[in-house]
């Protein structure tokens, strides 16, 4: 009997254990052994990691794994250089360089596709304060965020009032600025690589700002799938950025959300078009981008007319506090696919060869 493949899940910092537990269980389901480890615990020939035994995490010394599910994704970052060097010969599903796909870059790529670009939000990289002001005048409601930033951190929202003043929210406080003060602010943001985006008022009938997450993942057959869709709401109505740390975030089931927001059911028109968009976008980015990735988190908003807009397509580490099982099943299946590919165990179509029944 062949030994079971050994999957290592690589982390760069502490993460909630629910995620690793879900991955460990997914590995059992696909017939693989599993441990997780921190990049700092990689030795020259072994790794100190954690293995789930009888639902308890036990620390042990392991051999290098056969394949890695990279949950660090900092390749090329000096801090993690040593880890990637040591594990050079172990196959991984994610080979993109760290933060190589900033928001602007992804946005500009999507601009190249007639269908996909219909859902792009008007956007500009801040290069001149005056042009930034013109953008604010044109769109009235604008969000400013750093390129490459995450979790809505350091994001500001601006609303141009009829009297020509600007109301600025930093998610905690509201400030009132005149034109000159706004220009000064924009000037200061240019070196920090901020970009401006038209603000989409994505609000539930109850007044909660929200965004939708469409999680797109490769599966064990190397195909893109959508393992889950979810909604995130800001339960504080004055906080307009749903993924900020300052708000109280909530969610509902996807089914309840579809019903309350659109009066639709799962499998209905909105649900289906979000899925199609996610699949198409992932396939498109895969073709355009040199370097591999197998998970894409699309964040979308919906305006009052029901049109959806792409806030962000994240190629980093899309995660959810609720759907670890849904995400880890295809992720681990794909990781095993990568191992088979590495070992040359795929058939002519690139599909895993069917195992003989015992």
């Amino acid at each position, binding site marked *: 009997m062949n030994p079971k493949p050994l999957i290592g899940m690589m982390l760069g910092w502490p993460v909630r254990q*629910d995620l690793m537990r879900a991955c460990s*269980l997914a590995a059992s389901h696909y017939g693989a052994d599993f441990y997780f480890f921190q990049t700092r615990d990689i030795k020259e020939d072994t790794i100190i990691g954690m293995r789930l035994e009888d*639902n308890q995490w036990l620390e042990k010394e392991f051999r290098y794994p056969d394949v890695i599910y990279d949950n660090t994704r900092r390749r090329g970052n000096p801090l993690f250089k040593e880890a990637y060097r040591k594990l050079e010969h172990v196959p991984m599903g994610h080979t993109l360089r760290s933060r190589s796909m900033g928001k602007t870059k992804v946005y500009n790529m999507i601009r190249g596709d007639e269908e996909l670009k219909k859902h792009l939000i008007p956007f500009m990289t801040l290069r001149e304060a005056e042009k930034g002001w013109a953008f604010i005048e044109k769109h009235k409601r604008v969000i400013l965020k750093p390129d490459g930033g995450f979790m809505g951190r350091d994001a500001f929202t601006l609303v141009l009032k009829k009297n020509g003043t600007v109301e600025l929210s930093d998610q905690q406080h509201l400030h009132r600025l005149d034109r000159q003060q706004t220009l000064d602010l924009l000037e200061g943001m240019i070196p920090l690589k901020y970009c401006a985006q038209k603000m989409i008022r994505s609000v539930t009938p109850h007044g909660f700002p929200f965004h939708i997450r469409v999680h797109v993942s490769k599966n064990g057959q190397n195909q893109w799938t959508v393992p889950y869709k979810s909604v995130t*709401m800001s*339960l504080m109505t004055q906080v307009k950025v749903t993924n900020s740390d300052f708000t109280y975030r909530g*969610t*509902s089931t996807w089914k309840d959300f579809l019903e309350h927001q659109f009066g639709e059911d799962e499998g209905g028109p909105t649900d289906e078009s979000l899925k199609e968009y996610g699949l198409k976008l992932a396939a498109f980015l895969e073709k355009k981008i040199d370097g591999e990735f197998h998970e894409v988190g699309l964040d979308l908003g919906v305006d009052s007319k029901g049109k959806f807009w792409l806030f962000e397509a994240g190629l980093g580490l899309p995660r959810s506090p*609720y759907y670890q*099982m*849904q995400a880890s099943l295809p992720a681990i299946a794909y990781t095993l696919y990568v191992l088979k590919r590495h070992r040359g165990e795929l058939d002519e179509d690139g599909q895993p060869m069917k195992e003989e029944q015992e």
Partner: protein
Amino acid sequence: MNRKPLIGMMLGWKIPPDLPRACAVAAAYHGADFYYFRMSGIKENTIIGMKLENDEWVSGEFPYPDAIYDYTRRRGIALFAEAYRKLEGIPMGHTIKGRSMNKSKVYRIIQRNEQLSQSLIPYMTVKDSDSLMAFIERHEKVIFKTNGGYLGKNALTVELKNDVIELFDQQYLHRFSREDLPRLTEMLKAKKYFAQKMIHSVTPQGHPFHVRVHLSKNGQNRWTVAFHSIGLSLTPHVRVTNSESTYRGTSTWGDFLRNQFGEKEDGPLHLRIDDYALRMANYLEEASGGGFQEVALDLGLDDRKRIWLFEAGIGLPGTSYYQLQMALPAIAYTLYVLKKQRGEIE
């Protein structure tokens, strides 16, 4: 090599596929084979069920399983009698009769425990205006429900404000003076209302909430807290969380603790809740004779962090978000029950 144990999950009706999938994954982790089936699929010697192969549910004909995770829990109810008869002898973790642990029975059991009964919400059957007035005066805010009332329907809330009784029927506010009370009492009595102290379990943003603590037996036959989840009523001005028109939401346990009390996971409140919940599960088992493997406690928490028990569910608790957390101990316990039957453990 020993054959792997075979677990069957028994369903009485259609449910979303997430929980069976989580159970299949949990079974794989515990080294067991798994299929789920509907009662209609039980034949004399085999069962038509579904098995998860890689990512697909595949229909098949299976032998009777070695142990059953009963997700129907309707033993003793006529419609299901045939199924339980056929599967007699196969160990199951849940063995009590369907709906035998109803609300009032559980309430009465808890009343007998001095410590745990402090979390029970005071209530009274509406009989006369004097005792009702005394009850309202003692508790200031009171909710009226009908016995057997479903999902907060017809619930009324009453608040005593400067000698005026304000009654809210979820649509209109009515004012009564003390002199009106006999008339009001008669009305409530006629409709068989009972009065309950109103628990202010509301987020700073104004959303009524409850905390669900899901308790489960694990592979060592011990009660454990499988997960905490939050129920939020996101529709404004509806005071009763599970009334029909509400938009039900949730947040993570950690975000809730921080937003509500400025506390962290594993902080003092978290530990106090877990301690309470585990004591409750152990007590309920001991006092009722057991025969159940999962208990769902719905708790309210007031501004002074006092724990109030809205409901202790010993029926068929589910979850919209934490299927894996639920399945892991449930499947482990199912295997424990099998080992026990085979005499492999004490």
